[in-house]
């Protein structure tokens, strides 16, 4: 796991050229110099920006509503108005095939899905949903796991054993099996999640966000707890105790700053993982529920059109690949910057 970082502002054996710079500044400079990581960051920010612009695209460019069915609508292809869904040919005329990509941003750039909706607009809106859930669940997961790890690692004893065993139980389930089980119960049930006054309907994006956050807590908890155990026995922690610092101060002022780098390293990787998980669940119809769309639900919509209209599934697939790739490379860069000893191990 990530090695211990020096506490910001503490003495260190750095060379003269970096004297006076904090570890955070060093890490930032290291990251800045990593061109691949920075390119990934730019790519990720570009994807986020494009997805955030979905309403602008739908309203000002495509002039359609990608959430409303439009089975009897028409569009312009090569200057001619054509129906969005066309009946099959031959004698039997079975089935209805949606229009394919027009490569014209104003008119169904990536074609229509089987309900006559603009695939390009849905991919952009779906990206917003996937990113919201991915980032949201990763942040929630890391926050919960960090708090539990701080409590378990600092208090130790029975508390540590109890919390660690609970985490072990969650960890024991195959991650997708657990996610599918919980999602099937909550997302396809009439009442969604109801715990006391808290009520989340099945269509709420909070449900898949919380489910995905929950299943990954042990995966963040373990490395963070290990770091807490290590830091809590360091001299500066003992010095703080000797000076009469309270437990809360010890945890949040002395230990947390020394473990947060681990969380930062894990965060982009967790976002990539949670985006993939959300897409998988949505593909199985137990993630994001209509009328919302995500990249996973759009791939699901496109699976019956793979032969004739492959772009319905390919476009969101490409977006997932690019996003996850960017986040993974960025995560590696962040790790290299914040955890140089790990890099030395890899290179050495």
């Amino acid at each position, binding site marked *: 796991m990530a090695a211990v970082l020096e506490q910001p502002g503490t003495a260190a054996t750095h060379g003269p050229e970096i004297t006076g710079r904090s570890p955070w500044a060093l890490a930032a400079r290291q990251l800045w110099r990593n061109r691949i990581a920075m390119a990934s960051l730019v790519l990720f920010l570009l994807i986020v920006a494009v997805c955030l612009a979905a309403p602008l695209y739908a309203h000002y460019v495509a002039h359609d509503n990608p959430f*409303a*069915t439009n*089975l*009897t609508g028409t569009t312009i292809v090569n200057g001619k108005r054509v129906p969005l*869904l066309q*009946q*099959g*040919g*031959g*004698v*039997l*005329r*079975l*089935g*209805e*095939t949606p229009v394919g990509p027009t490569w014209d941003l104003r008119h169904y750039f990536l074609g229509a899905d*089987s*309900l006559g909706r603009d695939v390009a607009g849905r991919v952009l809106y779906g990206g917003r949903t996937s990113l919201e859930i991915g980032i949201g669940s990763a942040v929630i997961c890391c926050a919960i796991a960090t708090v539990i790890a701080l409590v378990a690692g600092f208090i130790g004893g029975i508390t540590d054993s109890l919390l660690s065993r609970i985490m072990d139980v969650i960890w024991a389930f195959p991650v997708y099996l657990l996610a599918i089980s919980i999602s*099937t119960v909550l997302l*396809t*049930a*009439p009442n969604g999640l109801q715990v006391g006054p808290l009520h989340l309907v*099945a*269509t709420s994006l909070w449900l898949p966000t919380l489910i995905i956050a929950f299943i990954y807590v042990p995966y963040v908890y373990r490395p963070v707890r290990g770091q807490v155990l290590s830091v809590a026995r360091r001299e500066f922690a003992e010095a703080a105790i000797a000076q009469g610092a309270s437990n809360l101060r010890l945890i949040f002022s002395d230990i947390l700053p020394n473990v947060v780098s681990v969380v930062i390293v894990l965060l982009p990787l967790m976002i990539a993982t949670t985006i993939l998980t959300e897409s998988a669940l949505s593909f199985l*119809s137990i993630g994001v*529920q*209509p*009328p919302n769309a995500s990249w996973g639900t759009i791939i699901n919509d496109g*699976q*019956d*059109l*793979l*032969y*004739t209209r492959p772009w319905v599934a390919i476009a969101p697939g490409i977006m997932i690949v690019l996003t996850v790739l960017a986040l993974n490379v960025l995560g590696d860069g962040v790790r290299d910057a914040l955890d140089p000893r790990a890099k030395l191990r890899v290179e050495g």
Partner: protein
Amino acid sequence: MKYIPATAAITARHRARSLHKLAAGAAVAALAVTAAACGGSSQSSGPSQAAAHKGGTFTILANAAFGVADPAQNYTLEEWQLLIDTHDGLVQWLRVGGVSGTKLVPDLATSIPTPTDGGKTYLFHIRRGIKFSNGQVLKPSDFVRTLERQFTVPGPTSFYSGIVGASKCSTKGCDLSQGVVANDTSYTLTFHLTAPDPEFLDKLGLPFAYVVPASTSLKLTGNNVPPGTGPYMWQSYDPNKQAVLVRNPFFHVWNAAAQPPGNPNEIIEKYGLTVSDEVTAVENGQADEVFDGDVIPADRLNELNSPKFASQVHVNPLTADWYFALNTKVPPFNNVLARQAINYAANRTAYVKIGGGPSLAVPTCQILPPNFPGYKPYCPYTAGTNHTKWTAPDLAKARQLVQQSHTAGMKVVVNTDIPDKALGEQMVSDLNAIGYKASLQALSGSIQYPFVQNSNNIGKWNVAWSAWYQDYPAPSDFLNVLLGCGSIHPRSDASPNIAEFCAPSIQAQMNHAEGLGETNPAAANSLWAVVDHEVTNQAPWVDLYNPKQIDFLSSQVHGYQWNPQWYILIDQLWVK
């Protein structure tokens, strides 16, 4: 049956209800009259040609198996299409393609009896010399055990709940000795009913009443199908692999109109392939039939339009409805004007496209499907002045009705199961177009149908998707079962009148039509037509379309016949 996704209709279809004479259409009766009372003639080809068709293996590909195989419990078309080849009942629908196939003919009974005692007693004479596939001789007392198993094995018992003694039966035990009296000496079987049931003979034609030996356990036999008397017997059934039917060595033809000899020597149904792979295998001649024709992906449907497959694809209309039930108990659809509004607004062209296009779905506004007793075309909810056929939505009229009903702006929850959520999304669009604030509630297939039936959930939805396929050709199977006052069962997951629609005046007409059917089927059909139109005017549903069925066969298969009751007649196909 199978065509209703997952568990839909399995537990709920037939509740205890007062039924009267089945009103089969006069035209249907006329077409079938030649075979009505036959005792042994075959309507198939001559002996030498028939012999030439015998042999080979017919292989069906199905995505999934049909669950537990015990015929007392299974309620799927998938198994029923095989059970009709391995088992027999007292009566059977004429085993031919076309409308003649709606005619009941005697099977293990020598003739179809006329009920006595005011319609409460049926005396059947049972054929002698028939053996089960295990060599055991068929006796009338075997039927007693068969009917008792209907109650001891968990299943849709209400088909036979009118038999004397049935009310005391449960899964713990059943004694129908007073209601089903067998005489193994005179080979007679007498049914005593608590009340006249004009559809009793139809119910005896269903596989639930197909005879099994009296030695069969009263408990569920699981995947071991008890012996039957048909031309085939079950060699094996593994839901994870395949079902294999081979010839029954003890079978002989006693009435080919009811149970003809089959053509293939072996019928195999294999499980586990995706529907797309099923299509590929049949295209390549590696198998003979795609069972899941109703869910062939849009991509592959397009492929089947090729002239290359023209002779291998068979499309037939189903006597079935796909519809949205409107919750008549809570606003806004407790207001008939609001119900009529969404009926005017529903873009049935869009729903038809979701259903596979005009070749696979026909838009409708009324309850009874075409080619059904009592059907007279009627569609008040269409643009234009022709009220016999839907042409386009009338949004202006719909919005006007919404204003008149003072329901504009109300929230509406549209409930569907997940596989059919596209229909729900279109309904949301239609509702929003006329001023409602609609949202979709997509539930898993196993939950949705019981959920919308249970009155405890009446406040949680406003529009619910459902589909209904006939059990047998009787108007009451749609109108009374789905929209009769007696089909509302409070707090039950098995309450098929989802809309909770109950109009006492219409119910009185239904009751009259059922009674009339026993003596005057033509007059009964006319009355059913009136009922159908009156119910349509009250708009408890948004009827969407009547679906069609695709059967895709390999190029080596011949002898295709479409029976309106059993659909494709597997045993009558022959493999070249």
